[in-house]
């Protein structure tokens, strides 16, 4: 569990990290763009604060917040986004796959809903092996209409696995509003499988932490999985390509109204102003150093483009012969 100050530090770190990453997308340092987490920081911060260091998470295409909140080094995350050899994944994963197994991140998945069954399998084996591990699996509201996601809910409940399903319900599956994509309710799906559900204010890090801590305690006690629907709003683009394409699926007024409940401000108001200013300065300094680290890091050698494809060989043949 984290105190108010630690939670503020996490949401602020994620916010400023994402702003820095967007700058680097605009300047061309980060290829391929990113899916900004801005507006949703309270969920990663609250859930990860409720987990133990040995607990595990799986992440999504919008995953920087999860990875940072679970404890990955921001400099190595940024280097990964910039495609550098010093990145968490040696530049082989990028924004959508940034992961650090040493802090319990079992991959960030770019296929919507694909991680839930992986998380369930991980929870099962760790329990089999007698290890006390809770696995939190993050996904968006778009994932609740994926078949494999629903199959995973069934498996997790059937075997009473220590999994926390964390639905980041930001109201949009890319551009599609929930009402146009989703019959019934989000939590109704989990309830149908006999899973304990809660809907929480996903803009408030402390509310999320409290709910996640309850879910983790249940899971640890052998009472099975839990499902948290965290209501949130994405302040920025689905993906940075929106800056060029400018799709109109919501109005500026709607976004401005949502921004009035900003998780960074909500948590910031719980921290004394002087302390808050000091944390802000520390984070800016940390991220400046991260930027310098990424800039100074080597790009991977093209000769190693298929390194890591297999655990211990073989090397496939080259694409051309001479």
């Amino acid at each position: 569990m984290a105190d108010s100050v630690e939670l503020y530090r996490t949401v602020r770190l994620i916010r400023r990290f994402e702003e820095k990453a967007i700058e680097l997308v605009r300047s061309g340092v980060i290829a391929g763009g990113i899916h900004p987490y801005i507006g949703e920081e309270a969920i990663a911060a609250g859930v990860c604060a409720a987990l133990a260091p040995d607990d595990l998470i799986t992440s999504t295409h919008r995953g920087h917040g999860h990875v940072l909140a679970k404890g990955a080094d921001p400099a190595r995350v940024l280097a990964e986004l910039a495609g550098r050899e010093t990145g968490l994944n040696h530049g082989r994963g990028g924004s959508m796959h940034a992961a650090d197994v040493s802090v319990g991140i079992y991959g960030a998945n770019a296929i919507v809903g694909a991680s839930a069954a992986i998380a369930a399998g991980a929870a099962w084996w760790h329990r089999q092996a007698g290890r006390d591990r809770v696995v939190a699996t993050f996904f968006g509201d778009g994932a609740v209409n994926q078949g494999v996601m629903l199959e995973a809910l069934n498996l997790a409940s059937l075997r009473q696995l220590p999994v926390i399903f964390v639905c980041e319900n930001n109201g949009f599956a890319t551009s599609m509003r929930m009402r146009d994509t989703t019959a019934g309710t989000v939590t109704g799906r989990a309830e149908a499988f006999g899973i304990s559900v809660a809907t929480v204010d996903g803009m408030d890090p402390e509310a999320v932490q409290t709910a996640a801590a309850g879910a983790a305690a249940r899971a640890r006690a052998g009472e099975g999985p839990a499902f948290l629907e965290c209501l949130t709003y994405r302040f920025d683009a689905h993906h940075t390509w929106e800056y060029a394409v400018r799709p109109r699926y919501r109005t500026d007024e709607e976004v401005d109204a949502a921004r009035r409940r900003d998780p960074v401000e909500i948590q910031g108001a719980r921290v004394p102003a002087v302390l808050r200013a000091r944390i802000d300065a520390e984070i800016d300094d940390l991220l400046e150093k991260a930027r310098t680290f990424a800039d100074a890091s080597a790009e991977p050698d093209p000769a190693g483009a298929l390194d890591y494809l297999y655990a211990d060989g073989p090397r496939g043949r080259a694409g051309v012969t001479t």
Partner: protein
Amino acid sequence: MPLLSYLRALNRALAAEMDRDPAVCVFGEDIGIAVSNVTTGLLKRFGPDRVIDMPISEQAFTSFATGAAMSGARPVVEFQIPALLFLAFEQIANQAHKFSLMTGGQLNVPVTYLLPSSGSRVGWAGQHSDHPYSLFAHVGVKTVVPATPADAYGLLVSAIRDNDPVIVFGPAGAVGQREDLDFGTLAPVPLGLGRVHRPGTEVTVVAIGHLVYDALAVADELADMISVEVFDPRTLYPFDWAGLAGSLERTGRLVVIDDSNRSCGIGGEILATAAEEMHLTAPPKRVTRPDGAVLPFARELDLALQPTRGQLRAAIEAVVKRG
């Protein structure tokens, strides 16, 4: 010596590996009662924590195996029907297979996918008769297609011990095979190593899976006229290119018999590689299913789309006549 059937060989390999390594577990549908005859006795011997009957949720239990494998397990996932691989293709090709590279080597996924009856069983129609090994070789999943009971044992053992995903296709046309052997000789067979079943000097026939038996029969028929070498790659990915090159050094001629659809099947890859890189004195030929084949139900129609001994014999004679 005792007879070992193909399915019994798979069963023995599973039991031996489960006995040797407590991380080995088996997932599948109806495996407790061993509906496909591969998991017979395992539930009783190893219990329900290691032999796990799954709901009909192939996508979820395939990825469940991925998560367990990342955490230290070595799951074997049985699919009763080859077409289920199309359903779980995302979970194998796009998830399990990609984690090692995408995480820069942080995560390995040692899962074995076991198909105890792939290809046509005659009369099982459009959605139960595929033999999709070429798809997995194409995406780079380690792919083995054992022809004999001893190889089925040895390759399944190696697949389970491998630290990457490996898919093991037991061809329906081979699982009825029995082999007279001393069980004490059963041993792991390394992935990526082919086998010459019959040496010859005039033409190399690369035969995959159950088609090894057809190739051996045709080689017998032709024995007085043409000296045929029968080469069984056993593993399609990684392929034993050096073994094939060695065979072609001896024969200079190549025919492939492959139960894939023609376009983009592994047979095409073998011909292309031989043409680019190896010793050939005549243009090679392949015998395959037709382009884009979907097997129809009626027996005559099902059989009409599978590679036959007659086609193989004609291809061998044509290649030998060409040079």
